[in-house]
């Protein structure tokens, strides 16, 4: 009886080991094809970043390999005009008041030619960084840049530029007093 219990327990442990191989969640399916937009891009920040990585964390790999890359990215922010409704525009003769939605990050663009390997050191027992590995490192940099958009101040610049653009446009079409403000709810990232 005791031996039977022990064998069952051992079997359970083994089954747990097999079950631990979880499948990685698949990438979210992208919608391919044409899509309608209404984004007014008003600010572009061009930024640079050094990508520094050291592959020495796997205990059984003999030797080290490190890489230093530089990348240039373009961040574009603006406002989504589809959120602008009739009730956001108030007209009183030659005076107009518009409440715009807050600026958001429209896109980030890192061109392949703007990623450059500056230095690479691979020891004798290791293989060079593959194309996929370099892309993965650059993708991490892309994520870091995207996350830092707010701290760079791009949203404030985008809102200031949007105000100036709409102000000029409305002046051209004949309005004398133009008042532009932003809706209270803030929506920063897409």
């Amino acid at each position: 009886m005791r031996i039977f219990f022990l064998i069952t327990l051992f079997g359970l442990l083994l089954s747990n080991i097999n079950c631990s191989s979880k499948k990685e969640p698949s990438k979210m399916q992208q919608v391919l094809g044409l899509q309608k937009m209404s984004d007014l891009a008003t600010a572009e920040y061009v930024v640079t970043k050094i990508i520094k990585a050291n592959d020495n964390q796997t205990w059984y790999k003999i030797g080290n390999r490190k890489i230093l890359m530089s990348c240039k990215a373009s961040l574009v922010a603006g406002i989504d005009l589809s959120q602008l409704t009739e009730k956001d525009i108030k007209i009183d003769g030659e005076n107009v008041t518009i409440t715009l939605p807050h600026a958001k990050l429209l896109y980030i663009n890192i061109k392949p030619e703007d990623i450059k390997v500056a230095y690479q050191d691979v020891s004798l027992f290791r293989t060079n960084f593959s194309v996929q590995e370099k892309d993965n490192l650059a993708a991490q940099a892309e994520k870091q840049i995207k996350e830092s958009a707010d701290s760079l101040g791009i949203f404030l610049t985008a809102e200031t530029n949007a105000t100036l653009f709409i102000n000029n446009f409305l002046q051209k079409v004949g309005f004398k007093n133009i008042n532009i403000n932003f809706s209270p709810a803030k929506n920063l990232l897409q």
Partner: protein
Amino acid sequence: MRKFLQKYLVLIVVVLAIIFLFQKINWLPSFKNIFKSQPVLIEKTPIIITEINTLSQLITVTFTDEIVMDTAKIGNGMPSLLPTAVGTILTPAIDKLVIIGRGKVLAGTDLKNIQDKDIQVTGDSIYLILPHAKILQTIMNPSDFETFDEKGNWDDKAVIALKSKIRNEINIHALQQNILQQADTRCKNIIETFLKNTGFKKVQIDLKN
């Protein structure tokens, strides 16, 4: 003898149970992860702003596509024997690179190009001439690329050339889908709605010749 074996069996089970518990509370890596290669993570480095530009671009249509493209060259590896009708021949090693690229083409109108003479207002009627839509940007970021196959050594120049070919192909596909015509129509609709909301009764919009 039986008692001796039983003692060892209990000891093994106890040790395994402890390992199991420690793995459950993440004090020990799982058996699978012991030989798993650790991911290479980049350090947090500062982001430097080099340029700030003012834009007035109305993005009206996006086109998303996925392209597979490959390239090959004679490599430095071991030559291989290829069986043919006249016997086996020695062929050089072939380096191959297959990349899957997902890209987004943004089309729209650069409203900066609207000049004073393009706007004519008469009472509650407005006539506006808009510039034609163009491809504003083709976005293919590092996270949009996947290397499906990589044999041999590939320098950055060759990889960039292949990625550029993918980008050009996506642009061609976008143009084949009449992205610019659709962007023109959409831009006219957006501006017309905006102007009507600002009180204009009659709005006429044409595109620049």
